[in-house]
């Protein structure tokens, strides 16, 4: 029944042309077809956040997005974002604050946190907690994760005000 559907998309800066079963999730596509295992599978119905990836500039649930829906689009996974920028700052803060143990939730947490830092640079602690409530962690108890994110927000605010300060 299911014919393979051709798709063409850019993942972490590289263009791929493949044929996929329509039912293939985006997260399964990046993991199995492209070998990018950094994004994880948890609940497979959108609540745990472990599969969070970036599609066309927005964080999405990789398990609630079909690979065919990403046809013509741009996908970024944790592997593609770790070299610089928000993710790298967050990763340094996560390490410093011991914000990961088994690491299973971490890539999803970082994707969610990246969007927060970009969209809500003035977020306070309560807002950070609300924002990441869509990502489940079973190991850390969350406080260290919130600490790490708040630190990155703080660093960026300080850097921004330094730049605005009169010479």
């Amino acid at each position, binding site marked *: 029944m299911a014919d393979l559907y051709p798709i063409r998309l850019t993942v972490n800066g590289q263009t791929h042309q493949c044929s996929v079963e329509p039912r293939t999730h985006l997260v399964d596509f990046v993991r199995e077809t492209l070998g990018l295992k950094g994004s994880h599978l948890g609940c497979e*119905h959108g609540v745990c956040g472990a599969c*969070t990836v970036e599609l066309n500039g927005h964080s999405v649930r990789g398990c609630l997005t079909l690979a065919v*829906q990403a046809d013509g689009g741009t996908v970024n996974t944790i592997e593609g974002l770790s070299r610089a920028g928000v993710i790298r700052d967050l990763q340094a803060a996560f390490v410093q604050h011991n914000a990961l143990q088994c690491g299973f939730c971490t890539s999803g947490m970082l994707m969610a946190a990246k969007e927060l830092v970009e969209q809500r640079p003035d977020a306070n602690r309560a807002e950070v907690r609300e924002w990441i409530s869509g990502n489940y962690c079973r190991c850390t108890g969350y406080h260290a994760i919130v600490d790490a994110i708040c630190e990155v927000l703080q660093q960026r605010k300080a850097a921004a005000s330094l730049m605005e300060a009169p010479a």
Partner: protein
Amino acid sequence: MKAAAFDYVKPRSIDQVIALLQQHGDDARLLAGGQSLLASLNMRLSEPRLLVDIGGLDALRGISVQGGQLRIGALTTHTEIEGSALVAQHAPLLSAAAPHIAHRAIRNAGTWGGSIAHADAAAEWPACLLALGGTVVAHGPKGERRIAADDFFQGLYATALEPEEVLVAGELPLAMPVSWYAFGELARRRGDYAIVGMALTGRRSAGVLADTRIVLMGVDSTPLRARKTEALLNGQVLDEALAAAVAASLRAEIDPLPDLTNTPETKRHLAGVLLQRLLNSARA
């Protein structure tokens, strides 16, 4: 769990979509944001043969003011509504409700039209559409038609949409200076479906209320208007005594259905609590 196999097509026009629906009937399902549909498919609660992706219909996108109404295209995402200046100006109830919808990643993909067509009784947009007296714009084999929100939600996940109709937009009356609104949800965790949720709207002139609508989420098989309690508020000036009296009326008026973790009595009690809270904060 992975979904069962299905075919996929992404039509380029609404007429193609309608033709496919006519051809395949219940074997086909429309795919917009997919945040509810794909979850059902992943759990194999549904195994359609064909998914018709309407994401290619650009005419279904966008927020604009047209003919004295705020028109929100079906494919507008929850995040787009959350961040829209037009919505903040003309339908601020939606701006208040949007952050309650699941979590950011879901809001980035889920759509206004999808939520209203799915008609979950605990969802935010069906309740807001009903509270604002909005209109659904549907397109089918016989052309376009408009369905008032009061006539739209008919039963559990059941709407007035015909099987071959596509919801293309939702229209809302523009807020006026005398309009007031309040929105609240009580849920175990942020982003959960509401145990009880409420959208309040109306007009207020010199403190006197009129045209009040009280819409409840999560207590019945559709978003529920508490008409008897609405009538109690109209013509009155809001004060603490009225808020308490009205909360009691609401508790008596509704007959909530339970869910897995909340009895009808819990929901009844929480509905009164929520109404009182929202009315008291509206006074401030």
